[in-house]
């Protein structure tokens, strides 16, 4: 299935929840996730399944003023 991840399209072979998606992307640390402009609380990462066509944003804190 195809999703949009941080503005770019990405093909994933099978169903994943957010934990699995992050681990596949080799992303860890403190971050926040939005799916279709809705925030997904960290507590739901292991149960929230990504669906085809979802628009996923993964953000973190960086330097800024």
């Amino acid at each position, binding site marked *: 299935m195809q999703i949009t991840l941080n503005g770019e399209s990405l093909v994933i072979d099978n169903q994943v929840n957010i934990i699995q998606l992050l681990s596949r992307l080799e992303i860890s640390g403190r971050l926040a996730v939005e799916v279709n402009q809705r925030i997904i609380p960290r507590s739901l990462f292991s149960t929230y399944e990504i669906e085809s066509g979802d628009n996923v944003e993964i953000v973190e804190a960086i330097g800024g*003023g």
Partner: protein
Amino acid sequence: MSVTKNNPEDPVIIAGQAYTSRLLLGTGKYKDMDETLHAIEASGSQIITVAIRRTNIGQNTDEPNLLDVIRPDKYTILPNTAGCYDADSAIRTCLLARELLDGHKLVKLEVLGDEKTLFPDVPATIIAAEELIKEDFDVMVYTNDDPIMAKRFEEMGCVAVMPLAAPIGSGLGIRNPYNIRTIVENASVPIIVDAGVGTASDAAIAMELGCDGVLMNTAVAEAKNPVLMASAMKKGIESGRQAFLAGRMPRRAYASASSPIDGTFF
């Protein structure tokens, strides 16, 4: 903001939290994470701003995550909405920041008007501030040096009002001290100059005008020696604050001798 002369620590209270440092420092534009951390330590800042951006996918840099270095248990992290040119993206950024920081409510709201000046889009800022306050955020709002607007943001429920002294990153100093002073005189929430200071004397002037603090980034990060400038800014803020509390002498048009006139032998 009323002067707390009887408390030797003279803290500024923001959203119910007391801070002994009146310097709020940004984390942008430094050479690396190490320099960022050393500048923060030299500044004595307790409130540190960060931006919220997309995580780089597949580009694992050697740099550690900012929040692993600037730890939220040690500093008050102040996420900003820099780069937002409309109310919706600013609100969305704050919601993501709150999730990122485990429910932390304090945010720096800025909704920008154009890229050339980075002046605030005040009508859009009002819309975003109203929504964020409704969503239970503690909003520190970046705005123009307009005393009427500053009062409106206070009445709306913003926890601090942060007028610019000059455009963001310009280093032009306090361009309208009379407006800043009027904003301070009218205020009953902390007034923090956000943007425009270039060097330590600018920060001191802001504090001498009675501001409760100064938020800066570029003036430190773009100094030739950022860590030394961070220390200079700390002292500028402290001496400006003490001078404000001490109350300056009146200005006179002509001289007034410091040594007595009586008892001269010539």
